């Protein structure tokens, strides 16, 4: 980020104006009060992208995840668990979106979607979605067809950081919503004779490969289906995670999450980045 140059005459007035503002400040005076958990960089970039933070928004659900056993020697999706993981996240997301809608937001940026298993109960987990609701300034170039909200009339959501959000808008795209797909998969154990037969050999274990393929493809195709429902052009910032949670070595959640986007304008030309060589480690 470039900042006003200290030679353009503005420099001496920085502390002066700032201190004057603090001197004028009256406790309890009515202001357009926002809260946000963005970092300073993100906050300034979101402002620069033409958006005003309205407030921190949050949705939470403490969920009892059901029980399902996989057959010992079979590759299979544990659909009860998949549904639980998806449903609970959706509850948290929906509540967060509802808070943002109450604030009259155009979207939510910097969303974090976390799961925390609780100590006080088996199979209890808190699913939580936190983000910052934003509203576009009048100056921001609103999409020609309709506003910033997505085709479901909801504020857009995005797990992109403030920096990525700024870059996305600069490049002429807008986020539509976070899309996700979940698949909890039980990977078969090897049969006894099969594992004996593999001793001392370097071989592929096809059923393991196939299981991982299956599970990831299921998670990704579910995510894609959500993006199609939003009429997205694509999905950016996709993360494909393997989350073991608490189910032991052979049962894993494969979770795909990303931000569905659509173009704001036909061309996507951005400033050619300047190359810099920072004199710091990494």
């Amino acid at each position: 980020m470039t900042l006003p140059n200290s030679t353009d005459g503005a420099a001496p007035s920085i502390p002066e104006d700032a201190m004057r503002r603090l001197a004028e400040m009256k406790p309890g005076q009515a202001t357009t009060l926002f809260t946000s958990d963005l970092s300073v960089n993100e906050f300034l970039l979101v402002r620069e992208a033409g958006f005003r933070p309205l407030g921190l928004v949050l949705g939470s659900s403490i969920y009892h995840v059901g029980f399902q056993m996989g057959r010992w020697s079979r590759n299979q999706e544990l659909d009860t668990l998949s549904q639980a993981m998806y449903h609970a996240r959706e509850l948290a997301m929906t509540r967060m979106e509802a808070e943002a809608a109450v604030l009259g937001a155009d979207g939510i940026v910097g969303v974090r979607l976390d799961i925390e298993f609780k100590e006080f109960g088996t199979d209890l987990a808190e699913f939580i979605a936190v983000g910052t609701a934003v509203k576009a300034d009048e100056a921001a170039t609103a999409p020609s067809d309709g506003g910033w909200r997505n085709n479901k009339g909801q504020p857009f959501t995005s797990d992109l950081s403030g920096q990525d959000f700024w870059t996305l808008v600069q490049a002429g795209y807008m986020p539509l919503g976070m899309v996700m797909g979940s698949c909890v998969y039980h990977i078969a154990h090897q049969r006894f004779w099969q594992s004996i037969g593999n001793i001392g050999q370097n071989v592929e274990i096809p059923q393991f490969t196939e299981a991982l393929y299956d599970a990831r493809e299921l998670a990704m195709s579910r995510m894609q289906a959500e993006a199609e429902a939003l009429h997205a052009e694509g999905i950016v910032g996709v993360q494909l995670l393997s989350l073991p949670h608490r189910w032991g070595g052979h049962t894993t959640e494969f979770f795909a999450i990303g931000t569905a986007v659509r173009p704001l304008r036909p061309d996507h030309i951005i400033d050619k980045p300047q190359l810099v060589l920072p004199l710091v480690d990494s």
Partner: protein
Amino acid sequence: MADWDGRGLPPVAAARMARFASGGLRTSLLSVPGAAGVESVGLRPVGEVMGCIVQHIGFAGWSGCGYYGGFGGLAGPGFGNPGAFGGGIPGTVGGGIAGGVAGGSGTTVTSSSGGFSGYRPYVDALYRGYGTAITRMLLEARSMAADGVVDVRLRVNHMDGGNREFVALGTAVRADSTTRPARLFSTELAGQDVAKLLRAGWVPAGIALGISVAIRHDDWATRRQSSWGAGNVEVAGYTELVSHVRADARQRFHRSVAELGADGAIASELSLRIWEIEPSENHRDHVAESTMFGTAVARFHRAADPPTRSLTYLPLRDPSPFRRAR
């Protein structure tokens, strides 16, 4: 030392301030980029400042979860409206997410409900701890003729016998200006962040905090929903508990920003702790504590457009193991 009455600064701290005034030695806890940052916006570090208080928290003020029955685990009626919860947006009225999740018969009691409800004395003690530590730190800063304190670190150290030490540690700065603020500002933000904010037309106003503790009785619905054979189901009672306690902490955070007269706040931490207590046999409650810390900021640039302009550049550095640096 023994005859200090708790007002103003302790004698040793006052002595250090006096030595600072006579010697004029400048100290600072800032990193090099932090110090360069604040200097670039006309804030000069004058010295490190500290404030602390040790408190004995002996009475948490538990007055129960509102469950006095004992007939089949039903709390009496009239404890509020369990169906609607989650009205967590400060500053809006009726922003609850009603329906959807039908609560059980229990109801959450937060520390803001009045009286000794829901650990109110405990929360008041935490507020007094942080508040006093910050005030004493600002007193030191004031005696150095500073205008504010940056890069404040707030810490709580647990000591033996239920005692807790609250410490605030930061670097006092003085502005190159003729105007002096009405009261000293303070911020948890590092020097670099303060510099970026000031150049973009925002000034940190003060540290804002919101703390709340809530308690909720485990009623039959909660027990059923969290039991082993419940299948996929939301435990509405626990969700209600955490939603209420977070909403209350956020509201108090919001109020503390408003009391400063600032325009907004950048939160640095939003945390939650939840645990189980068993005040009597077959009577279980859950308690949740939520805290929110941050810096209130005030805008001083008047133009509609932000004064900063970002420059796209591509740093030719080693790939970072963390793909999403924030």
